[in-house]
């Protein structure tokens, strides 16, 4: 070791420390806690004159500083030509550096999304700070209006609400945990298409649409029968074809999407009762892990065979029901199979023929049919997907009801 006691060594160490502090201080100043303003949600909208309108949601902490619950959301908007510029303008307005590292939600407006958002997504992904797990939402209304109304009804801390609402997809299947990382991944890949959460608000004018949906499970954002404190809702899925918004999926279609992707743990469906076509039975279904998806090419167009297994329990209970009889259970299973098969087929044909978008990455099952990447690229899966034929086979096993087995 160099002799530490040597006075010159000490001076050199001191000089080095000073050099390092001064050289790193620039990075320190941009990243340090006190100089940063943390965005919790970022809205990207289209303004007049073909510009972007960025909406930043910050949280202002109360000066008393004793408890976290006293945070208030603060919204700032800026019109700009690119996201980076917008952030820059916001920096100078706020007097602090905008930090996206805690941005949980990125919202694109429907209008912008239908024109294509690849530039915005690329520049967001290029940002080091953005977390790949930030959720991406396509809002049916103005993004600023959506963020304003996304105030959690039960929690006080907004980021926590943003964190947990996509998780409801695990047990409802009505929405999806779509992240910007997945979005980017799907944007680049040549056998899948991106998707996002469909967000919206209940407008007062739109309330008439409540009655439009005959079925509980066909609801989606802005067309749902919910009324509450909070106006924003996140039900359904926005489907993209490449980077352009192609269409929307409602709740039951989202369930289909999630169960093919194996991203839902259990969900509730109402199937027509086998005895009485007017009444419905609610069934709580759990997908089994033995999904079997097989893609083969028939005459150059894909033939996709899906075999999905579910096990279920009957939720609804009426007078004179008998849920221990095997025959009754079988007939309910059959009815359930028929119902789901029709739902899945309509979902699949809707995405393939109407939206021309393979959001389920069914193309990846086709990869094994090719020997080399160039073969697959030449085949051009995404173009051929619209010609696909689907064969859906649902196998549901209804075991039992819940507490009451017989009435």
């Amino acid at each position, binding site marked *: *070791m*160099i002799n530490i006691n040597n006075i010159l060594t000490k001076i050199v160490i001191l000089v080095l420390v000073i050099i390092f502090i001064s*050289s790193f201080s*620039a990075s320190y100043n*941009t990243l340090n806690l006190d100089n940063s303003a943390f965005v919790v949600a970022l809205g990207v909208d289209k303004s007049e004159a073909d510009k972007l309108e960025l909406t930043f949601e910050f949280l202002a902490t109360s000066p008393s500083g004793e408890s976290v619950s006293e945070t208030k959301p603060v919204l700032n908007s800026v019109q700009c030509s690119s996201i980076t510029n917008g952030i820059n303008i916001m920096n100078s307005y706020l007097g602090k550096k905008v930090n996206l590292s805690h941005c949980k939600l990125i919202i694109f407006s429907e209008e912008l999304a239908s024109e294509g958002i690849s530039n915005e997504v690329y520049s967001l992904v290029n940002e080091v700070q953005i977390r790949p797990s930030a959720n991406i939402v396509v809002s049916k209304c103005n993004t600023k209006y959506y963020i304003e109304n996304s105030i959690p009804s039960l929690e006080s801390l907004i980021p926590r609400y943003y964190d947990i609402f996509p998780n409801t997809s695990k047990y409802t299947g009505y929405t999806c945990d779509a992240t910007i*990382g997945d979005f980017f991944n799907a944007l680049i890949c*040549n056998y899948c298409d991106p998707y996002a959460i469909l967000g919206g608000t209940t407008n007062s004018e739109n309330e008439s649409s409540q009655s439009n949906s005959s079925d509980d499970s066909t609801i989606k954002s802005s067309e749902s029968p919910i009324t509450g404190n909070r106006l924003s809702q996140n039900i359904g899925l926005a489907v993209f074809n490449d980077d352009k918004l192609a269409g929307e999926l409602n709740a039951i279609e989202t369930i289909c999407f999630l169960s093919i992707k194996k991203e839902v743990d259990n969900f509730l469906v109402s199937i027509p009762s086998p005895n009485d076509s007017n009444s419905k039975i609610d069934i709580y279904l759990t997908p089994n892990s033995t999904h079997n998806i097989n893609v083969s090419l028939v005459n150059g167009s894909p033939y996709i065979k899906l075999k999905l297994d579910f096990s279920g329990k009957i939720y609804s209970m009426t007078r004179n029901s008998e849920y221990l009889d095997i025959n009754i259970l079988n007939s309910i299973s059959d009815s359930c199979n028929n119902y789901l098969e029709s739902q899945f087929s309509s979902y699949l044909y809707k995405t393939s023929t109407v939206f021309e978008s393979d959001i389920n990455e069914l193309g990846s099952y086709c*990869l094994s049919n090719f020997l080399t*990447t160039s073969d697959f690229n030449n085949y051009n899966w995404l173009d051929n997907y619209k010609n696909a034929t689907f064969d859906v086979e649902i196998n549901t096993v209804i075991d039992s009801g819940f507490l009451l087995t017989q009435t």
Partner: protein
Amino acid sequence: MTKQKISTVSAVMLTLSIVVSYITSSLPRTFINETKSATLLNIIYITMIVLFIILLFCKLLKKFPGLDLLDISKFLGGNTLRNIVGTLFIAYFIISSSIMLRNFCEGLVVVYYPLTNYIFIILMFIISIALTNRLGFQSTINTASIVFPLVLISAILLFCGNLDNFSFRKIYPVLGDGAYNTFVLGLKNIGAFGGICYLYFLPPMLKEPEKLKKIAIISVISTGFFILLCVGTLLFMFSFFTTTDEIMPLFSAARHIEFGTFFQRFESVFLLIWIISFCCYLSISCKFATHIFNKMLNLSDMRPILNIFIILIFAISLLPKNYAVSNFVETHIYRYLRIAVGFILGMTILILANFKKRKVGDKH
């Protein structure tokens, strides 16, 4: 030079620590870029080939027990050849570590220190190895054996933490860009096993030299496994490495790890571990370079020349004008250097020396 000798496990850790630095820089990206979905096949194939080479190497070395490449080249062509070989290897070690250092630091600049000049980040590493290289060889070995398990844990965590995001169907199409690309052009990737060429200098330092074969085989297999783990993570997770580039590929995989809502975004912890293991790599390279120099000139004490090598590394790492140049050097020149010095030069000398030995043996 060393009082204590290297145990078998430590030797394996040593060679693995070299690979870690390749992995954390651009190596996995190069792998995927070039062989596409056949990467895993390619890695297994290359591991087989390297295993074959290393078995040959052990067989060739059997006639020279306890000798390293320098002694062997002295036997083959006298002091001149020994000095040439020694110089080549020193140059290789120094150039490789400085290029890796430059690229790693460029990555760090982008990720965490946007407004800091890369010189200072390089200087930080340089100071750390300048301080540690004054310590004994044993310290480097021990440090490698403390740090490598951490890196292994981080790699496994990376793999397991991302299991949710995996789609295993991405190994199809099986052949990627075709058989020619995978098996013939893919041979270029053999440079990933560059850590093996440190084995040439290990025999005199080993505690049990007869276990060299075991060390070599274990090193190759675990290197292959380690690369498989890291490249597999990237391949299964992202569809985009086949078409796009990211500056630190494993880092971007680390960003995706999430356990619940509390443990999110702890990629900087991974980076912390990789920084430590990168220091380890630099220190090992520097130690080996000085060791060779020492052996060439028969110095009794190598501490005075340590600083010169460190300053050399610093200077060379500053040479490339920008990241584009240094990245080009790494992906297009350095990998062939790895193959040329690590495999071709070493093996040629060994084979020739074996011939000479046989000839000499015949005469007697």
